């Protein structure tokens, strides 16, 4: 496994919308995919979802969690996916996060068809292209902040010293440069979620997928984390925020409502008129 030739250190954020360096073909060759023949250039959406269906069969009972969902998300967009529980929101998040594959339809992430990938290939895509922020933080309690942040870099095969350097830069980026040796138990909820955001940033992913990132936080910490996401957005990151909370969804520049496995696109105000 080779080290990706990506710029290390602190990502250029906060520079008033400075564009991220364009992706190179080396990134795709890393995961040993068939060449797609297309370069994921900036004019092409980061996410292209086309007629995606997901059916869970629970014994004789078949549940259609997604019923032909299609949408695209451009590079640098900040999109909220909003819906009540049972709407198919989590299923969509799992597919966008390459944690699961659709039953039918196609899902292209940064120019690669993810819907037909093997388990190993999906693991590589998750590692390189997606940064997760979970509701439960999901930090390893036995590891210090920076050791948690470096985890995805371990699986990317990056050597130890480069890992530490990048992990520290990412922690610095989220304002926890002075807490690098603290364990999750020694940090507040907001700080823990910041560590998780740093972990999501550290691989310089194409997509940051935040699943109810404020669900376990008090309003002050929640504000804090949302401000951080907003800041990342301004620096050119592509962010998909999954939430059931309309107030949180308004943070995004575009809201997609999901209900009964179907997507209703549009402004929050427009769609709110049609949906309770």
């Amino acid at each position: 496994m080779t080290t990706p030739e990506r710029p290390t250190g602190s990502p250029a954020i906060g520079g008033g919308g400075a564009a991220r360096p364009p992706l190179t073909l080396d990134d795709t060759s890393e995961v040993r995919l068939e060449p797609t023949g297309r370069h994921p250039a900036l004019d092409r959406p980061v996410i292209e979802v086309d007629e995606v269906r997901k059916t869970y069969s629970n014994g004789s009972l078949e549940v259609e969690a997604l019923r032909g969902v299609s949408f695209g998300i451009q590079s640098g967009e900040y999109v909220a996916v909003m819906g009540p529980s049972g709407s198919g929101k989590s299923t969509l998040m799992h597919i966008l996060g390459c944690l699961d594959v659709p039953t039918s339809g196609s899902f292209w992430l940064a120019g690669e068809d993810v819907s037909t990938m093997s388990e190993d290939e999906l693991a590589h895509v998750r590692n390189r292209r997606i940064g997760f922020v979970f509701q439960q933080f999901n930090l390893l309690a036995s590891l210090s902040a920076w050791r948690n942040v470096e985890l995805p870099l371990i699986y990317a095969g990056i050597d130890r010293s480069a890992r530490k350097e990048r992990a520290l830069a990412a922690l610095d980026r989220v304002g926890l440069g002075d807490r690098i040796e603290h364990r999750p138990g020694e940090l507040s909820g907001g700080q823990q979620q910041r560590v998780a955001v740093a972990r999501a940033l550290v691989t310089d992913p194409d997509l940051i997928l935040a699943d109810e990132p404020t669900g376990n936080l008090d309003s002050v910490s929640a504000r804090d984390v949302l401000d951080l996401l907003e800041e990342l957005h301004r620096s050119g990151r592509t962010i998909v925020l999954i939430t059931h909370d309309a107030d949180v969804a308004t943070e995004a520049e575009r809201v997609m409502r999901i209900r009964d496995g179907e997507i209703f696109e549009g402004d929050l105000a427009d769609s709110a008129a049609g949906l309770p």
Partner: protein
Amino acid sequence: MNVLETFRTGLEAVVTHRLRSGLTILGIMIGITAVILTVGLGEGAQQQVSSEITALGSNLLTISPGSTTSSSGIRGGFGTASTLTLANATALDSKTVAPDIGAVAPTSSESESLVAGTTNWTTTVVGTWPSWLTVRGRSITQGRFIAGHDLTTRADVVVLGSTTAEELFGARDPVGQTVTVAGLPMSVIGVLNTVGSSGDSSSTSDQDDQAIVPITTASTQLFGGTTRNSVSDILVQATSSSTLSAAYQEANAELLSLHGITTPADADYTITPETSLVSTATSVDKTLTVLLGGIAGISLLVGGIGVMNIMLVSVTERIREIGLRKALGATPRVIRRQFLVEASVLGLLGGVLGVGLGLLGAWILPHFISDPIRISAAATAGAIVVAIGIGVAFGVYPAGRAAKLPPIDALRSE
């Protein structure tokens, strides 16, 4: 993710879950210690028995009177008229007749009462000649042994075993004292070395409780009833253990011709090689070792199942961690390896500590129990290999389960 990182991650998990790891290691450790000590005890006993048998005299053939068809019929001639004579022994002692025979010692023994002053002691009186000392592998601690001139003069001299001397004379120096054997006063000329027999007090096996007299004196003056020149048995020592079978054939051929027997099956004596005794005793001890080793092996197996149990619990307990690692890009193979490393590290640590404890036990235990413990290098190395093997073998299933966990289910679990 390279092997070093996998190893580091696995090792960290072992350290993080100290108590659980410690208990698992303890299980393996006890198993390994049990294997090392029981095998050591078995081998120690085996070695002790063979060295005790060797102490009786090495490369030995015992020629007993009487025929027997049974291969183990060492008692075949018991009670029957003796067919072996002093002349037979003298003939076998010839280098030209039997070049592979190193030493020959005829013996005739009877239980007699020994009296010294007011002390009375009944022991085995053995009539023999000087080479008995060589054949039996014994030595003299005080005085001298029977010499050639004692035989020709039928001297009234006796050499006592250390136990016999102590029983008769206590702390006094027995050499020069007089002891009455079957009514015949004899002077003590020497005391045999102590071989430290097994503590069995039966006079036939206690090598420290006997009285040695010149065979000529014994046959003419002490033992009544038997033909003057007959002997109870003839001990033949081959020049080396490799010539034992040649010595056997030479002795057999010579005796057949001396006794005028044409068919070997009609032989009126029995030759018993000592090796059969050694191998019998050794095989008994081997059985013991295998039995003990088997029991220890079971405890090792239990330890192994302990590793599996702990690893399975570990997988269940760490579903979220596994899910997270997979979400962050760990492939199933990486997860499987991490758990395998954990399991084998537990096995290795248990094995090394178990060997340490086993060696310590082997050093301390013999101070409390009389049995020696002989540490077998093969068993020790084998135990470590088995411990790691157990870690890996019993870790494969839990590791496979961990690797197969879908990341979503794992992340969802609360």
